[in-house]
Structures are given as structure tokens and as C-alpha cells.
């Protein structure tokens, strides 16, 4: 089949939205399909949005047998066999409208843009043969704001067989971009309350230098040099596999994320339990407290308790790691399932 994978992008910004497209491309090509990747630039500035949306409507992809659309507003692309793997709305006009993240005034003009955008989205959603999302929260938003039913298709990681479980050392790893809303600081603060010899390792490139500096200052302040390792740099896939193979557990503590996040998925593939918090959002779809990890309150003491439990109750930790891997099957997080549904 000739399949066009359509998404929008900002040049030189590499995020999860690209991974899902590019990994799917490899998987489809391995199955013998001919794939064309169509990335088109999009900037979500309200005053520039509709001309870009018109441009998307004018694109002719009739050469494809079907198109699969990802990042907004790629779902506006016209095609008789359009499948959406909807990963988010332009959130400032949806769930972020009533928050400080809106970025423009709540007045008649912007309410007009909002209403027009929602109406255009509704029309585009109605054109799709099938609507998939990447998480429960996105499905819920589609239902709430657009009245559209969708099926959750959890995005798997690439070549998950790479991950393995070798041993359980004393270190909980947090492998993720360092950003304030990923809350590496919460994990550091927790370390000043632990009672065991558990250690943590934070690895990943920092989005902004000041946050990394803030983390280092926190380590200084709480005199945690010997308990916390911080690696502010790009972590290769091979390193990631190594770290997860031997760690005690993995942490993923974002604030209200839409989806469960690749860090928790990768940990599960390595049969390692996951530490997260009650307010992490999509991570809660994957992690249940005491089953495949711990769900702490978003405060340092509660997080510290969980860290200690990983360390103290090794058997339990090992058992939860096995459950973490099993949980992926329960949620059908696999490329086999993804391809089956997208090509149905």
C-alpha cells in the first residue's frame, strides 16, 4: 500500500511527535508498504493559523492509498481514506483556554478564533475514516470538545527488544530531557528525606541552562553530591539500554502530561518498576501503585518513601518490574497491534 504519513513540524525542533511518525514509517516499510513522510511547517500563532490551515486543505495527496495524520493541524489534510492518530489539539484553544498558558486575551476576537478553529476541527475530524489517539486524556478531550469517539492506540517505542533486565543496583534513574515540568527537582528534594542508601541518576539534555543550574544548586544546598549523579547531556540509545538494564527502578515525574511517556515505557521493557506521582497525568494510565511501580504524592517526603521502598523491598521491586513488562501486553502497546489497527 502507498501510505503518506502526514504531520506538522517546526524545523530543527525534534520531539516525540517526530518519533511516532518516523518509527511507524520504519515499521510500515518493514511490512513492505511504500511510505512517504509529509512534514509541513506550522506555527500556532492565532493570526497566522487559518492561512496555514487553508494551505493544508489545498495539498493533493491523491497519489496515496491512505494517509495517516499526526500533529495538528495535519488532520485537516484532505484524503478519501484519512486515518488520524491524533496526538493533541492546539491546546491553547482547548483545554488550556482557561489557564495562564492561553497566551492571548479572552476577548471577542480570540473567542472567535477559538470557535472557528473548533468548528474547522470538527469538520476535519468528521472526514476521517477512523480516529485514534495516543492516550486516554486526548481521547477524553476529543469527546468533550469535539464530540468525537476515538480509539486509544498507545505509541510503542522503537525496537523494544533492545531493552533487557540484567540486575538491580542501588540507583533509581530518571532518563528524560531536563525541564521544569518534568520535575527533576522533586526527585532531588526527595533525596534529602531518604533513610536508605538509595541513589538517583538524572540523565538528559536540559532544555534551558538555568534549570540545570537550579538542579545543581539544589544538590549543593542539600549536600547530596554523593547520592545524586547528574548528566546534563544527550544520552545515546545504547547508554539508555545499559542504564535501564542495571538500575533499581526508573522515575518519571512530569506534571500533568498527556501520555504515559517514553521513559516509563522503556523502563517497562527493561522490566523495571516506575516511580511517578498522582498528578502526572497520562503516566497514571500505565502505572498502578504497588503493581508495576509506586504512585507517590507530589511532595518530597512521599517520593522519598517510595525510593526507600524500592531499596528495602528488593523482592517486591523485582516482582513489580516483571509486572511492568506484563502491563505493556495488557495495554496492547506493541507495533503489531498498531499496524493491525492502522491498516484495518
Amino acid at each position, binding site marked *: 500500500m502507498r501510505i503518506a504519513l502526514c504531520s506538522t513540524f517546526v524545523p530543527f525542533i525534534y520531539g516525540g511527535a517526530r518519533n511516532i511518525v518516523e518509527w511507524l514509517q520504519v515499521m510500515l516499510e518493514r511490512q513492505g508498504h511504500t511510505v512517504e513522510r509529509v512534514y509541513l511547517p506550522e506555527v500556532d500563532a492565532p493570526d497566522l493559523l487559518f492561512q496555514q490551515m487553508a494551505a493544508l486543505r*489545498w495539498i*493533493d495527496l491523491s497519489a496515496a492509498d491512505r494517509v495517516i495524520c499526526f500533529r495538528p493541524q495535519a488532520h485537516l489534510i484532505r484524503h478519501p481514506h484519512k486515518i488520524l492518530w491524533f496526538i493533541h489539539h492546539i491546546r491553547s484553544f482547548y483545554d488550556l483556554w482557561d489557564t495562564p498558558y492561553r497566551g492571548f486575551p479572552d476577548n471577542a476576537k480570540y473567542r472567535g478564533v477559538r470557535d472557528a478553529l473548533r468548528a474547522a476541527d470538527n469538520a476535519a475530524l468528521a472526514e476521517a475514516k477512523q480516529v485514534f489517539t495516543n492516550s486516554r486524556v486526548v481521547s477524553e478531550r476529543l469527546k468533550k470538545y469535539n464530540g468525537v469517539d476515538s480509539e486509544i492506540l498507545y505509541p510503542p517505542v522503537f525496537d523494544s527488544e533492545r531493552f533487557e533486565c540484567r540486575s538491580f543496583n542501588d540507583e533509581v534513574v530518571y532518563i528524560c530531557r531536563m525541564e521544569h515540568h518534568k520535575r527533576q527537582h522533586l526527585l532531588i528534594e526527595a533525596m534529602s528525606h531518604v533513610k536508605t542508601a538509595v541513589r538517583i541518576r538524572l540523565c538528559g539534555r536540559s532544555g534551558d541552562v538555568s534549570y540545570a543550574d537550579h538542579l545543581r544548586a539544589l544538590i549543593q544546598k542539600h549536600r547530596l553530591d554523593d547520592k545524586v549523579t547528574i548528566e546534563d547531556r544527550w544520552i545515546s540509545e545504547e547508554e539508555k539500554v545499559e542504564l535501564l538494564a542495571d538500575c533499581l527502578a526508573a522515575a518519571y515525574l512530569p506534571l500533568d502530561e498527556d501520555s504515559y511517556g517514553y521513559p516509563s515505557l522503556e523502563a517497562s521493557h527493561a522490566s523495571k518498576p516506575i516511580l511517578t506521582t498522582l498528578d502526572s497525568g497520562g503516566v497514571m494510565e500505565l502505572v498502578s501503585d504497588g503493581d508495576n511501580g509506586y504512585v507517590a504524592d507530589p511532595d518530597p517526603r512521599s517520593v522519598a518513601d517510595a525510593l526507600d521502598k524500592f531499596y528495602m523491598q528488593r523482592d517486591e521491586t523485582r516482582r513489580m518490574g516483571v509486572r511492568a513488562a506484563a502491563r505493556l501486553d495488557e495495554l496492547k502497546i506493541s507495533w503489531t497491534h498498531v499496524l493491525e489497527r492502522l491498516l484495518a
Partner: protein
Amino acid sequence: MKVLIVNNMAPFVWGGAEELAANLERNLILAGHQAEILRVPFQWEPAEAIPTQMLMMRAFELWNVDRVIALKFPAYLIRHPHKTLWLVHQYRQAYDLFDAGQTNLPPGEQGEALRSMIREADQQAFAEMRSIYTISDVTKARLARYNGREANVLVPPVNDPERFIGGESQGYVLAAGRVNAMKRQHLLVEAMRYTSPKTKLLVAGPPDSAADADALQRLVDQHDLGDRVKLDLRFLSRDEYAAYVNGAQAVAYVPYDEDALAYVTMEASQAGKALISACDSGGVLGLARHGETGWVAMPHPEALAGVLDQAFADSRRTQAYGDGARERLHAMDINWPSTVGMLLQ
């Protein structure tokens, strides 16, 4: 610097311009820049839908990009304060192909309106460019003739010169490149009817269609040339292809009115192989010089037979031509580092 290469995409088709964009991207990165390619779908049928696709290019917003290098119509219409044009081609059906009566623009007033729109949009886009380069003399001449725009030629360099090291002749003339009627490999096969028995020809490359391959095979069978003409009609790996070039007595490339120098002739020159071409082969003649880098013949089987034989008649002269071809290529200073430098000037 963040450099975005902007090109068209005919969905599910991968051709020379895509290859050029990919190689430019790779060489920009090698030169220490961040580079990415934006490929925007473009369908020129029906012609009436061309304007929407032109407007589409104007609508896109490029943020987080320091430089744009655009290659084709309508990709080069995109808005950006720092655009460089490296022109592969315009919409030729509104220019030289229109004059030649080979256009898909509808007749009458509507077609005229489309043509005028395309030309005006081009003029505006060219005026927006910080600098304009073309990939060939032909493209440069066309730009001057139709748009009154001066440009410098930046010939796309060979991507992997290290493969084309030359070597001992294995006793065949290589006819390489895509196989189709415009590339006229059939002229060379027919020429073999008139050549001396020791002249051998190898036609190697991917046929555009099964019909193109069948046509050549039929010629070979019909004239019973199987012992002196070998056909290897398929997509060749770079290694296989380079081995064929490096082992050739000479390299023949006789397309009809090609725009550019052509990779085949540049790679053959890089390998120090004498060139055989036809006098109506267009841009190829920038490298193929009769009596200097090889032979340029009339585009007829008999005439080509004469020069094929000559390639085997005096191997020292043939080698001298091959050396001449390599020198001529190097004198042109066609390599990626200087090309990238020019494009970012």
C-alpha cells in the same frame, strides 16, 4: 546555522532533485550546520490546481530557520527573509516547454492567465532572493532569457568522489544512467551493428519502465549483438556502479538536450575515463569536448559507431582524453565544500 532546504515532493517518486537535496543536507551537516529538508507535495495535474499550490507555499510560516535554500518551483515561493535559490528548474511548461508546444496549461485565456501568474510569482520570488544560482548553464540561460535574471552556475558536485578512482580498462564502453527513450541508450545499441568486432558495450542502469528495458533487449536480439552488448538493466548499488565506471574503456552518455553536466559524465571524468557524447546532448557538452576529453558525434548509429571504435583504436589516446576529462572537471572546482560555501555566502 540552521539551514532549511526547501524542495517539492511528487509523492512516492524519488528523483534527481530529491537526491540533490539529500546530498546538500548531508554536506551542510558535514560543514558544521544544522540542516533539514522541507518537501512540499506538488501535483501539476490538473494545471488549474497549480495556483492553490503556489498560494500554499506563500502560506507556510518558517520559524526557527536562519537560511533557506530553495530548489524548484513552487517550493521557492516560500516566504523567508534569507532565501537563496539554487535553481534546478522553473515550471518549464510555462516557459521553454510552452514555446515548444509541450505544455499542460489549458489553451486560451485561462492558460494565459495561469502562465502570467506563474511568471509574475517567479519574478517576485526571484526578487526576494539574496542570491541566485542555477545547477547548469541551460537553466542559467533560460532564467536570463525568460526572466531577465542573472545567475551563477553551481554544478551539483559528485557526492562520493572517493569511489571513482579509475583503473584498468576491462574492455567495454559503459552506457550508464537511467534507461529511457530520452537518454537514448538505443542509439548506442544500434551503433553496435556497425562497429568492429572487438568493440564492446555495457548498458547498465535502472529502466524507467519495463517497456524501456524490453526495447533494448529486442534490439540486441534482433541484431544478434548478444556477444558484444551486455545489458544490466536494474538499480545498481553505488559500489556496483562505481566498479563499472572504474573498469570502463570509456563512458558514453548521449541523452537528448540534457540540462546539466550530468552525474554520469562527472563521475566518469572523476574516474579519468574518456567521454562519448552526442552533439545535441546539451549540458553534458560542458565536459564532453571532442578531441580533448573524448568524442562528440552526430546522434546517429553510424556516427556513434565510428567513435565507439575509436575508443578502442588507440588506448593511449583514450587514456589521454580520460585524463583531460578529470582535469577539466577539477578545473571547474565542483566539490561540496565550496558549493556549500557559495550557497551560504
